[in-house]
């Protein structure tokens, strides 16, 4: 919270340098340096689905008009819109809270699978052996996103950040920290 120097939020908060963020397990001398999320372009599928479902709801109105009463149609519409908004909210939460965090002491991967299941993986910087970034294909190259794979020593669990913004920048920051 205290490290506000050169704070920046880029690409719709998918790449945040020195963010105003605090972790549940954050130590006293620990500072959050980087918070990374999936690139916004990877979230287009559910935005597109929402538009399609909204159009389907309008079509459903026309089809149901002759079968249902006005009250029933009104309820179907309210219910449909509520479900659509919930779908948007669910996907937003999934995107917003699935983050990779780099602190001055460790790297943490927070995953909320389907929002319900929580999985936190962390690796101390001194245990990191190898960092690889993978970015291939037209979209990944054009929008500058990809995967970062962090290999740790021994039996420690490896960390993978998928579809994150600026993977090469992330690798550079982690490499600098590991080299210190």
């Amino acid at each position, binding site marked *: 919270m205290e490290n506000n120097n050169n704070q920046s939020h880029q690409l719709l908060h998918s790449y945040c340098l020195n*963010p*105003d*963020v*605090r*972790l*549940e397990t954050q130590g006293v001398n620990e500072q959050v340096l980087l918070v990374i999320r999936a690139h916004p372009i990877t979230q287009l599928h559910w935005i597109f689905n929402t538009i399609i479902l909204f159009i389907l709801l309008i079509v459903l109105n026309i089809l149901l008009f002759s079968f*249902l*009463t006005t*009250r*029933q149609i*009104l*309820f179907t519409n*309210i*219910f449909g819109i*509520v*479900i659509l908004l*919930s779908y948007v*909210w*669910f996907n937003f*939460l999934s995107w917003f*809270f699935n*983050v990779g*965090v780099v602190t001055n002491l460790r790297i943490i991967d*927070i995953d*909320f699978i389907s*929002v*319900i299941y*929580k999985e*936190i993986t962390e690796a101390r910087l001194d245990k990191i052996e190898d960092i690889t970034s993978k970015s291939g294909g037209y979209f990944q190259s054009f929008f500058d996103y990809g995967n970062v794979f962090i290999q740790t020593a021994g039996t420690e669990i490896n960390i993978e950040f998928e579809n994150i913004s600026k993977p090469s920048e992330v690798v550079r920051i982690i490499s600098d920290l590991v080299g210190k």
Partner: protein
Amino acid sequence: MELQNLSFLNTQTITVIAFKAFAIVFSLFYLVYAIVIAKQTQVMNKTLEVKNNHVFFVISSVQITIGLILIILAIILV
């Protein structure tokens, strides 16, 4: 005699009853879903504290309120 007693059950009445039953059941399902999401949002907020994280709590609370309104609408309106 029995057929005469059941004569009020015409197609339209059956449709109305079936629709109401479905509306109430699905509204209840939605309410349960909204409560689970609200609870999980609290867990997520605790895991990663961001600035203005009360917004998540407010939206989740609104979702529960909508769930309750849906049940009332399903009972009264439909």
